[in-house]
């Protein structure tokens, strides 16, 4: 069995979407579902409900300390954003039990993913994106394929990490040397298995190119740039230290204001520290 077949088999054997997320998604397909009904579903798991509230009160969503109930959170942030937060917490929880190794630590990996989620949302806001509700989760999920390698092909993944370190190349290139495909493809398989919306599937598949021929919104370029920003600020670590020079096409696409990164940086770092504490340590 080659690498690709082994990874496909592993992804196929993974459990389906986290239960609460599946229940929420189903409820959201019914137009009669109210905020209270959704709150009731989320509240079936008290621990997760409390975390959802804490994340919803994160400063970067703009409602610090004002949201007291899940119903209010749904009202202020919207159905999709709340479902996305529940999903992010479920995925982090289900993949965080894997043991750390010196070259790859899931806690640092998730810290990096959270940083990319926050940076993606801030970049989306700066580019005047029409809706920001998928930006946080898009950033959080972008590298999920690395966890597939880490969980199901650990020895070879460690070899890829070492190649990236020794040759000073990106982990993506090192993975391609070993596996003949990289984490964007592995992550895309998982996203398809989980039947995630196509926008998230594309984020995972194209987050290293930044642009796609048919993408109309700013989500993919924002995740692409959010990844670079998080790496440049050393917020978490996702296995390698390579930081690509940004694809020049994204500047025309995003049209960010002059000096934007310097302006948002202090707040970005503060939001990162708060959100990592809530999502990973509390």
């Amino acid at each position, binding site marked *: 069995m080659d690498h690709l077949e082994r990874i496909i088999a592993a992804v196929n054997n993974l459990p389906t979407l986290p239960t609460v997320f599946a229940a929420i998604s189903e409820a959201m397909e019914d137009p009669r579902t109210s905020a209270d009904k959704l709150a009731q579903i989320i509240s079936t798991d008290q621990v997760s409900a409390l975390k959802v509230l804490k994340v919803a009160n994160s400063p970067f969503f703009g409602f610090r300390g004002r949201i007291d109930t899940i119903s209010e959170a749904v009202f202020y942030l919207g159905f999709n954003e709340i479902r996305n937060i529940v999903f992010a917490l479920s995925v982090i929880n289900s993949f965080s039990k894997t043991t750390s190794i010196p070259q790859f630590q899931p806690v640092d990996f998730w810290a990096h993913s959270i940083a990319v989620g926050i940076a993606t949302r801030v970049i989306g806001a700066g580019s005047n994106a029409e809706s920001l509700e998928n930006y946080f989760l898009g950033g959080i999920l972008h590298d999920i394929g690395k966890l597939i390698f880490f969980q199901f092909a650990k020895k070879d993944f460690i070899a890829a990490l070492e190649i990236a370190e020794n040759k000073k190349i990106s982990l993506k290139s090192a993975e391609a040397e070993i596996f003949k495909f990289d984490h964007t493809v592995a992550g895309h398989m998982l996203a398809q298995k989980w039947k995630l919306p196509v926008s998230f599937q594309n984020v995972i598949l194209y987050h290293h190119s930044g642009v796609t021929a048919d993408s109309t919104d700013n989500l993919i370029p924002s995740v692409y740039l959010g990844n*670079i920003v998080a790496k440049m600020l050393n917020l978490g670590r996702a296995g390698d230290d390579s930081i690509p020079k940004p694809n020049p096409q994204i500047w025309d696409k995003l049209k960010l204001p*002059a000096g934007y990164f310097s*302006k948002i940086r202090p707040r970005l770092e503060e939001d990162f520290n708060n959100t990592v504490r809530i999502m990973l340590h509390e």
Partner: protein
Amino acid sequence: MARLITLDEIEDGMVLSTPAKNKFGQILLGAGLPLTQKHKGMLKTWGVTMLQVVDEAEQEEAKSFTTIMRDDASQKLVQRLQWEPENEYEKDLFEMALRSILEKSY
């Protein structure tokens, strides 16, 4: 980190540090949004008189690091990146990372 300004003081590119809300507490513009002159009218209509924006004066403090400190940090950053900033956006990204390194190192 934030500075309170009136609507008349809005300059293009200023960034909201906290959301602009109407008297009912509803958010009109989210934190992190870059302001433009076109926002003035809308905010006035909603009865907003003051806004909190990112304080650039505070960010200027980072410039007080000595040239030696900046050069040292800058060199390390270029080594890490393996590329040098060319356009204005890349220079801004570079400055962002440089200030972060300086604040954490000194």
